[in-house]
């Protein structure tokens, strides 16, 4: 059945990829077969073109090697100064990553992608710098030669005899958005070489001259062309997948690579990476660490870890598996991860051990359904010291010797015990005693002492009991059988016990790990404060990893703050910040600043990165093992989740407190307002009803009651102002924002102020096309009322008060103008302050809260208010309200004009 529609999962994956890519910068690689083909020149030419188009181009680093024509191309391009670092007394120049990030160019030129950075740089490799630049959204142009591609490294080395150590993982090359092949026929290149146009480092000139042989150049050119063709092929496939032309059914089979203790692992990894790339499948790399391999010297183990890291860099999922039988473990792993192809190095034929079955054979036997790929191991020129195994300084080494002593002692004891029995028992039974001793020694102390016990027992039995006694001579050949059995029993038992003990040890370790995780999770679940989390974290890392740890969390101002614990790691704030900003691990054993002794893990919680965990291990190698790193990552995850939980607990608490205090304040305010207003209401009403009493009050009495009424109303205004101010100042006034015409609120303010304004002339001039505004009608009425009241209060009777409005840029300006005496000079700002009045100690009533309230209300509406004197005299108060997008009104029905019905 052929399905012409694209697989939705695949499409989704592609969309995600494209999303990630859109935010990232674009990488364009100028790819060449060898040095001297003109990659840098081509890159500069392309950059100049971009600059001519108005792109902001920055030269990050360009190696012109003093070639004039290339040098000339850089003219007119902005160059980033190199960073100077001193390393062991030398001044070294290196690309300045932070400088480049700070410059934020649109495009940066980074020559020689494979370059290794000088010690002390943030990343060990330039391609990692480039990754960071791309992640920051900066486009990058770079150059690379074919022999620098990781997976082609061996092939090129094989062809040319020259090995380069600076390599770029293929995934970087494959992930590049564009690859431009810069090609030059070998003859022309040789011509250029002759003319001295190709840069050659002096020290290796001879070797490199060897490199530039025509045969080599043709081979390299072919490799480069083919690699580019592969990429184009991949693009083609991608295109076809997009267009859904392909009817090829893709299985998601994947590849498992086994790394053994032997040599040439790196080559296996490169082969696997290339194969996985060609098949476009994910791949895994495993190393099965058996008891025997655990006893390998440290340097050897480091080498294996490095190989695993190489695999990881090339996109593999790397793991170390504990186990006794590598083949069984590998098969189990392949089954549990649904991997169908197993790749391993080919063992050398061992004609002297015809019974020996190679690793790959065993896998084939255990799992006939798995494809097994054998890779030839190379024999690299042995570098002195690389493999020369130093015996590891293991603690149990000394203990071992004691167990051998114990073993001998047990044999001695058995002899003593057997001695008196000799006369009563048959030799066949006496030998049983020795057999028992051998078994016990093997069980108790393992293989070595077991073997010793076997030999000793055989020797003692022979010497002391087998006739002729007290000589090693054997009279009866059948005793040889006894000896052989005894030896075999010792060996087999020892082997079994050793295996059992190793499994037990592994199980204990694993259990300890699980228990640590479980206990940590349990303890973290009870933590309520970041400090507690810090303590728990420090404790568990101290137990589990013999490491000191410090947690840095972000505070409200997005700064990393240390959680203080008793023994923290000696962390570097800069690296921690980097790890936090990039949400990537940094420091020891990572791609970023691996020289640092401290490992920095970002604490990624579901909502965001909560901080950084800094771990300073006594033995940094322990943290490098993949399963240890995974455990640490799990720890970090647990801590992050705990931090997030604590964070939200805090948020919830502070919200509750805030709500509670708001509720309290509101109930207090309304209680006060009720208690103050009730007597005032009674006072006003009773004063009014005085006139209703019988007999009717006299003129003087009426005047007095009128005065009482006035004062009570003034008191009421005062209370209103104070309460309003208290409400506004608490900052929690809820605006009842509605879309409404300004005209309406002007009308209601004028109505409310009709008494104070009775003896003034009022003119309202509002433009007809004023849009609806969003404001709180009650509060806005208050602003206008206060301004009108002020105008009435501070201007003589008969003055003209005007209300105007004008729509401007994004806001509407509303003004209340009078033609009175105006504001005192310099008081334009002063009057908005609390308890300020235009004229000090004047008889005009009213505490100066009105304008302060106006300002608070206007500012709550995101507007501004100011006062000024008009040129012609008089004061002008202006406030603004932001213009928004009023909701649409269906005027459909409005289209029909009502026709009067004539009878």
């Amino acid at each position, binding site marked *: 059945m052929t399905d012409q529609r694209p697989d939705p999962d695949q499409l989704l994956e592609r969309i995600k990829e494209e999303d990630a890519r859109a935010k990232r910068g674009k990488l364009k690689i100028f790819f060449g077969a060898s040095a001297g083909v003109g990659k840098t020149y081509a890159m500069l030419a392309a950059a100049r073109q971009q600059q001519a188009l108005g792109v902001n181009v920055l030269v990050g680093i360009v190696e012109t090697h003093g070639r004039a024509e290339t040098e000339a191309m850089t003219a007119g391009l902005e160059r980033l100064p190199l960073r100077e670092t001193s390393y062991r007394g030398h001044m070294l120049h290196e690309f300045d990553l932070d400088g480049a990030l700070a410059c934020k160019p649109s495009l940066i030129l980074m020559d020689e992608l494979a370059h290794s950075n000088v010690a002390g740089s943030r990343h060990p490799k330039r391609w990692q710098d480039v990754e960071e630049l791309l992640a920051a959204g900066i486009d990058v142009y770079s150059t690379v030669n074919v022999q620098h591609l990781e997976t082609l490294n061996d092939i090129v080395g094989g062809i040319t005899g020259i090995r380069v150590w600076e390599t770029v993982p293929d995934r970087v090359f494959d992930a590049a958005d564009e690859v431009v092949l810069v090609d030059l026929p070998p003859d022309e290149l040789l011509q250029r070489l002759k003319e001295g146009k190709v840069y050659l480092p002096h020290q290796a000139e001879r070797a490199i001259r060897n490199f530039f042989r025509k045969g080599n150049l043709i081979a390299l050119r072919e490799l480069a062309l083919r690699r580019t063709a592969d990429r184009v092929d991949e693009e083609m496939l991608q295109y076809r997948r997009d267009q859904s032309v392909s009817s090829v059914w893709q299985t998601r089979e994947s590849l498992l690579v086994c790394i053994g203790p032997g040599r040439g692992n790196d080559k296996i990894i490169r082969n696997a990476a290339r194969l996985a790339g060609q098949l476009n499948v994910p791949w895994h790399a495993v190393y099965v660490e058996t008891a025997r391999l655990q006893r390998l010297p440290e340097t050897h183990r480091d080498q294996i870890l490095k190989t695993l890291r190489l695999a990881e860099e090339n996109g593999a999922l790397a793991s170390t598996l504990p186990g006794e039988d590598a083949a069984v473990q590998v098969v189990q792993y392949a089954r549990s991860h649904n991997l169908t192809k197993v790749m391993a190095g080919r063992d050398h034929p061992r004609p002297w051990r015809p019974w020996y079955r190679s690793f790959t054979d065993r896998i084939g036997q255990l799992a006939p359904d798995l494809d097994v790929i054998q890779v030839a191991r190379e024999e690299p020129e042995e570098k002195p010291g690389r493999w020369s195994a130093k015996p590891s300084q293991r603690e149990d080494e000394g203990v071992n010797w004691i167990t051998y002593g114990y073993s001998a002692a047990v044999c001695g004891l058995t002899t003593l015990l057997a001695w008196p029995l000799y006369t009563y028992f048959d030799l066949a039974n006496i030998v049983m005693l020795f057999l028992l001793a051998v078994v016990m020694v093997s069980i108790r102390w393992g293989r070595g002492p077991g073997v010793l016990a076997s030999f000793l027992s055989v020797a003692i039995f022979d010497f002391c009991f087998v006739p002729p006694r007290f000589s090693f001579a054997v009279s009866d050949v059948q005793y040889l059988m006894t000896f052989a059995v005894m030896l075999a029993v010792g060996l087999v038992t020892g082997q079994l016990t050793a295996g059992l003990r190793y499994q037990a040890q592994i199980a204990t370790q694993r259990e300890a790990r699980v228990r640590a995780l479980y206990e940590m999770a349990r303890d973290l679940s009870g933590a309520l404060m970041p400090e507690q989390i810090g303590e728990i974290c420090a404790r568990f890392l101290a137990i589990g990893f013999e490491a000191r740890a410090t947690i840095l969390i972000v505070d409200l101002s997005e700064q990393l703050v240390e959680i203080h614990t008793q023994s923290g790691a000696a962390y570097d704030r800069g690296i921690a910040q980097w790890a936090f900003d990039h949400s990537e691990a940094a420091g020891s054993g990572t791609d970023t600043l691996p020289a640092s002794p401290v490992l920095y893990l970002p604490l990624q919680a579901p909502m965001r990165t909560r901080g950084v965990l800094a771990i300073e291990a006594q033995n940094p190698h322990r943290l490098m093992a993949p399963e240890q790193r995974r455990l640490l990552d799990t720890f970090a995850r647990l801590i992050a989740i705990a931090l997030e939980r604590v964070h939200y607990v805090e948020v919830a608490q502070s919200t509750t407190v805030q709500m509670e205090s708001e509720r309290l304040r509101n109930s207090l305010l309304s209680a006060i307002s009720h208690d103050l207003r009730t007597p005032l209401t009674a006072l*006003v009403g*009773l004063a009014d009803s005085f006139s209703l009493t019988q007999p009717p009050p006299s003129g003087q009495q009426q005047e007095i009651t009128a005065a009482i009424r006035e004062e009570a109303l003034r008191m009421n205004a005062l209370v209103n102002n104070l309460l309003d101010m208290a409400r506004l100042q608490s900052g929690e006034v809820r605006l009842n924002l509605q879309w409404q015409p300004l005209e309406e609120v002007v*009308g*209601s303010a004028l109505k409310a102020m009709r008494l104070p304004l009775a003896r003034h002339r009022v003119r309202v001039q509002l433009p007809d096309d004023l849009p609806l505004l969003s404001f709180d*009608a009650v509060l806005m009425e208050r602003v206008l009322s206060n301004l009108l009241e002020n105008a009435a209060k501070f201007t003589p009777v008969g003055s003209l008060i005007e209300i105007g409005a004008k729509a401007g840029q994004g806001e509407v300006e509303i003004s209340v103008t009078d033609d009175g005496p105006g504001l005192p000079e310099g008081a334009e700002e002063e009057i908005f302050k609390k308890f300020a009045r235009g004229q000090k100690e004047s008889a005009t009533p009213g505490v100066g809260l009105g304008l302060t309230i106006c300002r608070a209300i206007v500012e709550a509406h995101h507007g501004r208010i100011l006062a000024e004197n008009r040129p012609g005299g008089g004061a002008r108060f202006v406030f603004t309200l932001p213009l928004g997008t009023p909701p649409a009104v269906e005027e459909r029905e409005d289209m*029909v004009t*009502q026709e009067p019905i004539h009878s």
Partner: protein
Amino acid sequence: MSAPSPVVIVVEDEPQIRRFVRMALESEGCEVFEADTLKRGLIEAGTRKPDMVVLDLGLPDGSGVDFIRELRTWSGIPVLVLSARTAEADKVDALDAGADDYLTKPFGVGELLARVRAQLRRHARRGEDGQTALQFGKIKLDMARRLVEKDGQTVHLTPIEYRLLSYLIANPDSVLTHRQLLRNVWGPSHSEDSHYVRIYMGHLRKKLEDDPSQPVHFVTEAGIGYRFIA
């Protein structure tokens, strides 16, 4: 003519306020019964056959809004609400529940009596249906012919404007909330679009008021709604 004096029930927990309200109402010739709690008020309202209720919103044993809801289940008499200044939401709730008008504390006797008179008048006129012509200010309305004139000039109103005007005129002197107007003029589906009311009220004012920014007939009650004054 000696019409029976109207019966007014005052539900208010403050004795001094109750006292002057009573004095004022009695001076108008009303018969006044007092209640200081919600429960007492409902009993009075149920037994005294009142023509009107003056109600304080903040009562010791409950909210005045509950009183109105209860009362409205069996009576349509006018309810005048007394409330504090800052409690706009309470006023709107009370009006939506069926109150007819409100007074903000502190208030004078004059204001109180004016409101009470208006409500009593409206209540008394309630029975007289079939009124086809109406005049207020310079505006003449012929309901039968759906004709609106201002200063003798025909004013063209859209159907919605006319519906709005009719509804306002049917409820003179009462405060109508935005929601009430929307529900009754536009229908229940529009009850959240309060800017519709504001826009059309603006249209009515422009067409019928002399100075739309200082309306005489279509008065804004800020934050609450509108009141039509003939």
